[in-house]
């Protein structure tokens, strides 16, 4: 089926708000190329379970497409129109399974050597959209905090090497009450500027005591869900004919109830957490991978103004099948390896934060937990500098907040 043949009743399986968004704009969608539209539908189909920032962004994108004249739309999407698709893709039920369609489209683009052309079309479209749709500035400058190295007694190699050129490195930070001060600072921002999903705390282990205003996700808190997930994965792997692509597709369809997840009363957050485990790679077995991915997804999707991310030690490497099979027994940890993971993870957190609107005003702190080293990045912080001034965490934060 081609987009020009779309009918409203084909979207009956969509959740109410998603369906409304489609049906209100059906005439626009009918004019979009098949290499483009399922990518948009993949986002819209989950509209009812998206964060406010994502909904606003989708609304604006659809409104922009509707606002364009036919000729403008043709110019915007010309690169997508030129992508040659197979008849199998045209026959695919992309209305109800847009994510699966995108997987198959990706295979098609690779095998027909059209990936670069698609990439160019997507980049050009994104650039135009970025110019046409004004990004919402955050209500306050963003603050990212990364706490790394939990459980490491000493480490003599340099940390924060990728972050240091962008800010100031402090080598004599008083670690006393460091985590408490950082979490309190996050809570203070949440109290002053309360908006749902605007202030987050992600922990790679069990979360420290924190204000309820912070949206909290933790690897420890998801332990029962992970256990069910790993059991389900094993059961599926044992099924004859199961392959990696089929399993990935199957996992992407798992919902909180499939994993016996106890509801938090927040279906948006429940689904977000499950997707971290079903769509992330390594998130099921390594807490450092989970933490970095959770931060990336929170920033990309919820666009928080405050994000505290605390990495915890991951399990030591074993065979992949062993790790997937482990079921809650005592795990041998690798604190040093986890510190290296988290050092890179902190850099990725900063990069992902800087992709959001308001990057020029955003601030970032990365701290080696219970130790003296930290790096601070912000508009008023001189880049590539070092300080051996003795200071506590409050003083450190005063550089940027």
């Amino acid at each position, binding site marked *: 089926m081609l987009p020009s043949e779309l009918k409203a009743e084909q979207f009956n399986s969509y959740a109410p708000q998603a369906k409304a968004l489609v049906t209100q704009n059906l005439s626009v969608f009918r004019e979009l190329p098949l290499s483009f539209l399922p990518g948009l539908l993949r986002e819209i189909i989950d509209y009812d379970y998206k964060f406010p920032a994502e909904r606003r962004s989708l609304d604006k994108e659809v409104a922009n497409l509707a606002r364009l004249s036919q000729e403008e739309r043709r110019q915007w999407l010309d690169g997508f129109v030129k992508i040659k698709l197979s008849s199998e893709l045209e026959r695919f039920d992309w209305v109800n399974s847009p994510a699966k369609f995108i997987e198959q489209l990706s295979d098609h683009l690779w095998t027909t050597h059209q990936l670069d052309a698609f990439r160019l079309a997507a980049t050009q479209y994104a650039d135009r959209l970025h110019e046409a749709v004004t990004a919402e500035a955050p209500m306050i400058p963003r603050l990212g905090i990364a706490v790394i190295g939990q459980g490491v007694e000493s480490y003599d190699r340099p940390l924060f090497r990728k972050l240091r050129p962008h800010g100031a490195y402090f080598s004599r930070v008083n670690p006393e009450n460091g985590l408490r001060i950082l979490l309190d600072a996050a809570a203070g921002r949440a109290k002053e500027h309360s908006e749902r999903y605007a202030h987050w705390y992600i922990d790679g282990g069990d979360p420290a005591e924190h204000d309820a205003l912070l949206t909290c996700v933790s690897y420890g808190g998801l332990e029962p869900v992970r256990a069910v997930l790993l059991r389900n994965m094993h059961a599926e792997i044992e099924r004859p004919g199961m392959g990696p692509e089929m*399993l990935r597709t199957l996992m992407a369809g798992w919902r909180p109830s499939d994993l016996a997840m106890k509801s938090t009363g927040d279906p948006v957050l429940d689904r977000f957490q499950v997707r971290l485990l079903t769509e992330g790679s390594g998130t099921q077995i390594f807490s450092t991978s989970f933490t970095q991915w959770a931060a990336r997804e929170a920033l990309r999707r919820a666009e928080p103004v405050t994000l505290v991310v605390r990495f915890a030690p991951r399990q030591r490497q074993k065979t992949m099948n062993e790790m*997937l099979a482990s079921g809650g027994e005592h795990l041998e940890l690798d604190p040093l390896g986890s510190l290296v993971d988290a050092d890179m993870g902190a850099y990725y957190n900063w990069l992902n934060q800087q992709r959001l609107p308001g990057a020029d005003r955003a601030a970032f702190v990365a701290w080696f937990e219970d130790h003296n080293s930290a790096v601070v990045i912000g508009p008023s912080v001189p880049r590539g500098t070092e300080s051996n001034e003795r200071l506590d965490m409050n003083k450190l934060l005063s550089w940027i907040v």
Partner: protein
Amino acid sequence: MTLPEPTSSQIAGTRRDFLRDAAGVVLGATLARSPLARAAALPASRKVVVVTFGGGARDQETFAPEGQENVPNMLRDLIPRATFFTQVVNRGILGHYVATASLATGAYETINNFASLPPENPTAFEYYRKERKRPSSDTWVVAPSNGFNRIGESNHRSYGAGLGARVILPKHLLAAAISRGHADYEHLLRDNYETPYFTPDLAGNEFELQQLETLLKLSVDDFKAHARTLSSPDELSVYIAKRLMRQVAPSLLWITMHDIDIAHAGTYSLYVEGIRRTDRLCSEIWKAIESEPEYAGKTTLLILPDFGRDADTDPGGNGFQHHRTGDVLSRTTWLIAIGPGIREGVVHDRAVDSVDLVPTIGSILKFSASQSEGKPIGEIL
């Protein structure tokens, strides 16, 4: 904020500048030497060993300035004696099996990366064996077990059946040797990291367990005992490769490394650890070449990653973890060529294509890679 992606030539320039500083190498274009004189100095009987530095390593963790600490052995032992290409571009599908198959055929394969399928184009092994009338024992592949069991032989109708390389899957071999109770070996049986739950049925030209003794002169007990001393699947592969070199001495030996691909699990420390181990193993392979009478002085060693990994700056990816975006960093890698007749300590910046590998091997081993999409790399012939 805009985070610009590097271009291929910028990546190449960074590698070149670093190598010039670190290893005292010179730029290839500044050198000139008669190809006839070079050919006259070459041994009549030549061998080639190919190592894929896998699976997927980025510039910044290898030959860029900040990556130097991860490749000390290659910098010290190989680069000063090698010709180094700073810009090897892979324009194909960036999945490990299909990309390695493309390297082995010299044509961009489009087979399913996760299926147990043979390449569609003739492999270097088939060209070599058919044209030079070589026995099957003269071409071998040592590869990680999952998925790579079909890489030695294509399904091309003019080549294919009976003309391919023999394939050893060391993990498969070890699993067969330890029929039960393998707690001591679990670290050597690590799996395909991209799809940890996928183990295809093994089929094709496999090395049988009993051949350990007949071909490699290695008892199952000795194999198991030695395996206990190793720390990773790639170490097991290199151990088997060295045994092959000693006992069988194939003219064309292909070793596919894979430890680095643990990056898919998102753990940077394990990814870097994999690079450091692979660096050490590459140096060990060269030392084995130099010390084995059948190889010393007549073997060309070619080392290259199958491809890179996604750039930190590409919002479509997640940095080192995957190779899904098809960005410049994930497509641009390097090549080390070392052996008789190859200029030492030279760096070439010009872009070569990863499918140029097979025609280059063809020029060394005197076969014509007629179906390849690449062309011989003149600077190392």
